[in-house]
């Protein structure tokens, strides 16, 4: 009796990890050559893994939904004859074995595993008898540019009828030959369409609705395009511990909430930004790239990205430097309401020197905000999440929030941007400083 280890195949295109989608067998099952053992998936394609040999399943390499590195052990089988693994390390318990210390998947071993699964990175490949010497078949590289795609006349005719250019269809057949199944897959857009469910939940829909891009939507599109085309963005993400800040905020609302209005995090962040730009004046600036002039502004007019029914608008809190958090909060509320009801005036919607954008509860963990041209920086606020953190050797639950901020690399160097964000982080993590400076 020998052991035959089937490793996670290299599915091409430099994919490092592959997720196990479904096991078709359980330990102890007897399997026959070519029988499909598992479904694995990359973001490109779902691939069935057939058994190259007859044998009985000894161990599965991981559980469903787990990602395994290419070359990692997928399945271990007991087989007649020598098998392809070194002397089995005793009865292998089914707990996930750490890779034996120093075990490096030598290239030819990977080669062998891969060689055993001839053909391109998709389904049933002709299996080779285990005894056969490794056939001189290299891993099926995707066809070279300019090389004619291999396809039978019937497939070619059907492709023409479907208006498909065969060059773009991955062929699963031998030597990359394109089969009817490949065409179906291509037509279905890479995913195998699930079997049509009897009830209506999965009924295929074919309607489409054309929406003209006009008015505010057109304006937003143009500004976004202008910003993306003209400004070489770079985004800097930093994690901020807002536990203290949140605690302070709650206390302030408890004490002054009734007469001065409730505070959200935003006014505090604005204060932090106001303070931080004093040490990094380049940030609170506008860059006219045609006249090649950067204008640093003393006043800090902060644009607040606000979602309205018509789309994204950016009302501006003018002279944030001259406002305490409550005044900022009130102004934000006023502007947001005006914007949402389309009553915000042109002045209220322009003149910002820096912008803050936040998706509130949907903050996500990281974002890459687009700078509000012609400004040079934008601070994005991600959601707050409570997570275990190591503090002085102990594990503590802390409220953590990411700041994803983009900068115009033409005028803001990485160090300056980082310095600015660290300053903001400093203020937020020590909220008292917001009121001292």
């Amino acid at each position, binding site marked *: 009796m020998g052991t035959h280890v089937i490793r996670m195949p290299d599915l091409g295109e430099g994919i490092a990890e592959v997720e196990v989608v479904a096991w078709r067998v359980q330990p102890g099952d007897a399997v026959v050559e070519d029988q499909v053992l598992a479904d694995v998936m990359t973001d490109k394609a779902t691939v069935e893994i057939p058994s190259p040999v007859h044998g009985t399943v000894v161990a599965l390499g991981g559980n469903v939904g787990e990602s395994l590195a290419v070359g990692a052990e997928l399945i271990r089988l007991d087989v007649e004859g020598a098998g392809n693994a070194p002397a089995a390390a005793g009865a292998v318990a089914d707990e996930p074995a750490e890779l034996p210390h120093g075990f490096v998947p030598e290239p030819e071993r990977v080669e062998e595993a891969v060689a055993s699964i001839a053909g391109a990175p998709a389904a049933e490949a*002709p299996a080779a008898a285990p005894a056969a010497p490794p056939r001189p078949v290299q891993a099926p590289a995707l066809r070279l540019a300019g090389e004619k795609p291999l396809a*039978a006349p019937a497939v070619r005719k059907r492709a023409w009828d479907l208006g498909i250019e065969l060059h773009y269809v991955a062929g699963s057949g*031998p030597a990359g030959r394109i089969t009817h199944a490949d065409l179906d897959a291509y037509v279905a857009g890479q995913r195998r369409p699930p079997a049509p469910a009897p009830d209506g939940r999965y009924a295929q829909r074919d309607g489409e609705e054309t929406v003209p891009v006009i008015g505010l939507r057109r304006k937003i599109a143009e500004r976004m395009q202008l910003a993306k085309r003209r400004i070489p963005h770079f985004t800097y993400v930093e994690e901020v511990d807002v536990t203290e800040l949140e605690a302070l905020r709650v206390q302030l609302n408890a004490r002054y909430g009734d007469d001065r209005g409730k505070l959200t995090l935003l006014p505090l962040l604005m204060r932090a930004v106001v303070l931080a730009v004093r040490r990094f004046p380049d940030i609170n600036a506008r860059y006219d790239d045609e006249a090649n002039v950067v204008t640093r502004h003393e006043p800090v007019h902060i644009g607040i990205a606000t979602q309205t029914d018509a789309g994204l608008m950016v009302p501006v809190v003018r002279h944030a430097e001259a406002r305490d958090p409550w005044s900022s909060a009130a102004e934000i509320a006023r502007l947001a309401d005006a914007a949402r009801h389309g009553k915000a005036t042109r002045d209220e919607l322009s003149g910002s020197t820096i912008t803050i954008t936040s998706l509130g509860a949907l903050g996500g963990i990281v974002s890459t905000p687009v700078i509000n041209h012609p400004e040079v920086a934008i601070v994005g606020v991600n959601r707050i999440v409570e997570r275990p953190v190591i503090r002085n050797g102990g594990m503590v639950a802390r409220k953590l929030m990411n700041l994803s901020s983009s900068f115009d690399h033409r005028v803001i160097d990485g160090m300056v941007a980082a310095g600015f964000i660290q300053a903001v982080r400093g203020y937020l993590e020590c909220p008292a400083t917001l009121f001292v400076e």
Partner: protein
Amino acid sequence: MAETYDSTTLLVIGGGPGGYVAAIRAGQLGIPTVLVEGADLGGTCLNIGCIPSKALIHAADAFHQAARYAGESPLGIRTAPPTIAIASTVAWKDGIVGRLTGGVGALLKKNGVRVVHGWARILDGKTVEVDEGGAPLRIRCEHLLLATGSQAVELPSLPFGGNVVSSTEALAPSTLPGHLVVVGAGYIGLELGIAYRKLGARVTFVEAAGRLLPAYDDELVRPVATSLTRLGIAVHLEASVLGPADDGRGVRMRDGGGTESVLAADRVLVAVGRRPRTEGFGLEGLLLDMNGRFVHIDNQCRTSMRNVWAIGDLTGEPMLAHRAMAQGEMVAEIIAGRRRHFTPAAIPAVCFTDPEVVVVGMTPQDAARLGIDCISAHFPFAANGRAMTLEATDGFVRVVARRDNHVIVGWQAVGGAVSELSTAFVQAIEMGAQLEDVAGTIHAHPTLGEAVQEAALRALGHALHV
């Protein structure tokens, strides 16, 4: 006499294989079609080419076999020396041709194609005038398809006429010549020369190139060369014809060394190639982009002029009937609105010499020239049982496949009756088969086809029968 006028959607000039197939397919697709043919439906192929030559070759073989049985046949058969009435052989051949051309006419009629018999003259890209003998008929069309085929090349120094004939006349001999000189040892010259030899004539070849069948490689030609020697056919290589002999019975020739001599001959067959028929019907008036002497086309058979198409020998090599037919069918489908392209993986070429030669796809030399790393393997018919039972052990089957993924890129074969193997060869290439596919297919025993499987096994390194 003022012209009568007519109009149609598709007008096809030329009723040969390309033209009539295009017309039939167009008819099937409901496209109003007119086909103009100046001579006989079926064109060169049916009337003075493929079909009649194969018939003559078959008759010559039969006669040759009988003659061998009159001699020392190993089969132990003894007959009296046979005689042949060439006139009735030609009549038999004409019968076949008649049935086929009749068949084409019926197919065209069935599919609603209007056939106009007469010589077409192109007035412009959408108007053709046909002289049916009576008032000229002027037909306007939306799509003009040029399928005028090719004609035999005439040597300026040895014009056709008298006892200097082209393949057309050679296929309808009233008498057999005592000594036939064939100028040109290409596939047409060799097919007919061997046939005439088997019919009893003395045959001598004069070929300008350094060997027979210059288009094919040495390995394939060698068995043919030995066969000629065995049949007692004389061959002058690197020799050229200067003109008719002074007494008008033979030709003046200059051999490789430059010495001139006279070759007496009762009849001289000039078969030095064919050229596209581009004159005599106003084609030059369209000012089309040309490709040398051929009409330039793209991979949908479009010429440079909008809605003017060209197919078959008129458009270039290989000048083969089955290429023209495939192109004709495709053009009809494109005109019907379908998306089609003429991108075959390979087009088989068969030479009905004795032994026969088949070439499909790349030869080893082609692969080397294109820089494709290939494996190539032979399987000799000498090791094939069936070949032995057919007294045809000369020749071999050769396969050429890519070394990296074993995809077969070429098949060649020379040997008795190998022409029929062309089907297996071209299907394998068209389907993108690998050596393993052919090796893994059970071929019937005992057949010549087994050599195909064995050639594939040999390429994989484990042939069984050699």
